[in-house]
């Protein structure tokens, strides 16, 4: 089978689940290799978000990598901007820029800044990095689409840590008032913030009142839950979001921080650090082995 990889064909690619899974494994490999090359960077969050990003960019978003400023394109905002290398890896594979450019991540003069910058990298729809800020521009885009009579959809990926920021709930409140159904938030619900909370027993990363779906519903949103590492489950949640009219949807995607590499999964120590040469080799062995999906293509 020939994989339609790194081909900047416009529109959703309609890939089967097996191919999406291979692409996800390859994207994770790019994340680890890029952070290893840069000598620093986030890993846990990008790996928890990878399957959702692959699914959106290959099978959902109506985009044209050769024309990143196409005005009718679907919009995507990575509100948890510190997972930038996850997004860059998927964008490279989707054909926005050469995969080789991932080696410039975090370097001076690189288009691939530590946090996504719309002024620097074509294809980034909104600059992010200061947490809690991505949903509001997404609402602005949704309102703009309505005003312009355009059918594009706006997707915003949130981190479960960043929804501690008050601005998220400002945006939820106002989005609820405007009945926007062309806006979908996807919560990367990996349950591991960077530092956590003081606790009688030391420290805990468990939230005390951890019911995000209830919070979104209280602001008038439709919610749907999915397994953020299962492409069929992601597809079903996306379909449920797009078929909901008259209100925005939040997809609560249950994920695992560091997903895909056994010794990184669920370990907050991999929030941001560079793997050693041996760790990188072991991780690649688990993720793709010899299956280089790009060379196959």
């Amino acid at each position: 089978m020939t994989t339609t990889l790194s081909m900047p064909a416009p529109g959703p690619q309609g890939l089967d689940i097996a191919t999406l899974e291979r692409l996800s494994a390859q994207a994770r490999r790019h994340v680890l290799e890029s952070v290893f090359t840069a000598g620093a960077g986030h890993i846990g969050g990008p790996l928890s978000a990878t399957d959702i990003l692959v699914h959106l960019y290959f099978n959902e978003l109506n985009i044209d990598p050769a024309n990143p400023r196409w005005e009718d394109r679907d919009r995507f905002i990575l509100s948890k901007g510190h997972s930038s290398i996850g997004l860059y890896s998927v964008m490279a594979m989707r054909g926005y820029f050469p995969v080789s450019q991932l080696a410039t991540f975090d370097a001076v003069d690189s288009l691939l800044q530590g946090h996504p910058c719309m002024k620097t990298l074509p294809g980034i729809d909104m600059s992010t990095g200061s947490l809690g800020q991505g949903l509001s521009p997404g609402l602005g885009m949704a309102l703009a689409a309505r005003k312009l009579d355009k059918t594009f959809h706006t997707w915003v990926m949130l981190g479960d840590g960043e929804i501690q920021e008050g601005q998220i709930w400002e945006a939820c409140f106002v989005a609820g008032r405007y009945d926007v159904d062309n806006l979908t938030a996807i919560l990367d619900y990996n349950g591991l913030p960077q530092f956590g909370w003081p606790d009688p027993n030391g420290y805990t990363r468990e939230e005390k009142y951890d019911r995000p779906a209830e919070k979104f519903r209280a602001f008038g949103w439709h919610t749907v839950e999915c397994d953020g590492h299962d492409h069929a489950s992601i597809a079903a949640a996306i379909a449920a979001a797009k078929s909901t009219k008259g209100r925005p949807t939040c997809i609560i995607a249950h994920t695992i921080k560091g997903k895909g590499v056994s010794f990184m999964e669920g370990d907050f120590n991999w929030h941001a650090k560079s793997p050693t040469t041996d760790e990188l080799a072991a991780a690649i062995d688990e993720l793709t082995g010899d299956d280089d999906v790009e060379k196959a293509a």
Partner: protein
Amino acid sequence: MIELLDLTLANAPTEAPRDAWGNALCDLGDRHTNLVVLDGDLANSTKADTFAKCHPDRFYEMGIAEQNLIGVAAGMASCGFVPWVSTFAAFLAKRALDQIRVVVAQPGLNVKLCGGYTGILTGKTGKTHQSVEDIAVFRAMPGVVTIAPADGNELRAAMTAMMADERPTYLRLTRDPSPVVFPSDYAFTIGESVLLRNGSDIGLISTGVQTIRTLEAADLLAAEGIQAAVLHVPTLKPLDIEGILAIAERTNAIITAEDHSIIGGLGSAVAEVLAEHRPTRMRRVGWQDTFGESGPNDALLKKYGLTAGHVCDAARAMLN
């Protein structure tokens, strides 16, 4: 540097800049269908409600949530709209500052940030609502044009210029009626200062509505035989360095005057220019590193040192 040497305070009509702003926004909206207005539940105070009546389909109420207000504007700007965002400057320039920095200034999005109720005259609301640091904030923010008009006519002209410019811009607005001295056909040029009085004894440099009180001071000084030049600097950023140096060259003594903190505002900007290019004696009239309080306008101007008399005192002190 533009020269407008025949402006007079005598018999000048008064107009509240906020009224001028609301009306001008309606007119701009007639001409530009991509202009939208976003409000933070203060439309009847800021006069954004005037636009809401003219163009209800392009008026977006964002509620009491300033951080989201800025983000939504950025999203709309990224889709080709020109959002004019309106709330009190105290909240815009501080509460939503990180949002302005990350999603407006850093990507360079064309959002017009309109800060109402600046300076000390804020309708007896007091220190929470008096914005005395907004110029300092935006001068330090890369890429944000900063404009403080002197009266309703200059405000209208500045808004036309802003709409023709694609840079993110902060517009400093005031609340209460003040004399209108600029001509109605005045054309505003972003970055140009305006010479309002010629004189070689002392140079008075001011911005915003404080320029009206500075003109009054110049007239009082003239009656004493002191010929003061008056340079109005409506654009704090980019700053008209040549205009400021020309006045320093002509007078060798500079007083700055502003309804803003002397730290980081016009006084600081002029001091930076003079220190680097042409060391010149100067004094700064403005808020002396303090917060304000609520009270009647005249009493506040007097207590916080912003009257024409205070400008005259500074001038006399320097010349003696």
